[in-house]
């Protein structure tokens, strides 16, 4: 197991805007570059299991992941099948004035990659996903004056 944390990232949106975006129709297509063939295989309460393919190290790779949402403050994710099966991570959202701080904590595991490679590749996936979300959120709301 390889633990990591990435705390203090700021989203330029209020926590309400962030959660509205996460539940919106814009969220799925925001990840069209890095993922494809998204399919919800099970939805029970606030837990959704999703099958999809994503680009890992230049190749499309299938995965199954389970995500449990606790609005408005955290989402717990578990990789069930695929290159990172057994990996778990939590995204914690905290209001920070008109912005939202995101803290990520996780434990990366992989049946495919050595621990260091698995951590590097998985963090690349998270970084890419964050950047796609930031771009999509910027496109879906009115511009805001910056101080």
């Amino acid at each position: 197991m390889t633990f990591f944390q990435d705390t203090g990232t700021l989203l330029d949106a209020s926590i309400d805007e962030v959660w509205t975006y996460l539940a919106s129709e814009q969220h799925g297509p925001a990840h069209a570059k890095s993922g494809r063939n998204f399919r919800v295989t099970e939805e029970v309460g606030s837990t959704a299991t999703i099958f999809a393919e994503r680009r890992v190290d230049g190749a499309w790779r299938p995965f199954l992941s389970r995500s449990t949402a606790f609005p408005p403050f955290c989402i717990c994710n578990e990789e069930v099948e695929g290159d990172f099966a057994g990996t778990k991570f939590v995204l914690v959202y905290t209001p920070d004035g008109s912005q939202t701080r995101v803290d990520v904590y996780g434990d990366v595991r992989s049946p495919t990659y050595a621990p260091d490679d698995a951590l590097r590749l998985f963090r690349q996936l998270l970084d890419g996903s964050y950047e796609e979300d930031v771009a999509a959120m910027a496109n879906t709301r009115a511009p805001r004056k910056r101080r």
Partner: protein
Amino acid sequence: MVWVEDKGATFDAPIDVVWKYIFGGGDHDAAHHTTRAGKMKLAFKEPIILLYTAERKCGTTWKKETMRISFFPPVASVQELLDGPLKGSKWTYVYTPHGRRTRVDAYGEFRSRSLPTKKLKRWAVEFLANEFREDAPGVRAMGRAQRP
């Protein structure tokens, strides 16, 4: 609603021991003096979700509450109060190995129909600190018992 963080507390035991304790080892339930008559029921297997009903000490009286606890070992657990005076409150504990010790960071979003914001925040900060204080000796004892 108020947002509360309590970061950097450290249990004197490795993360696997902490999780054994969380799942009922070391007389976990008895460690908490502000709850009594606790009963657990498995609500869901994947992820593991328990419904925990108990009475919580509120000043000089005991009030019933139901808590849903979702476990994502070894990274986090999430607690949600489904009824009682603080219905709607949620908090998460995030666990990180720190050598032979385990750091626990708590984040919460607390709600109350009766407490004003300042009092609620003070209560929530004290609550999270007290939960840690009550767990720490039991976790340490389990850790010591399991050392080779």
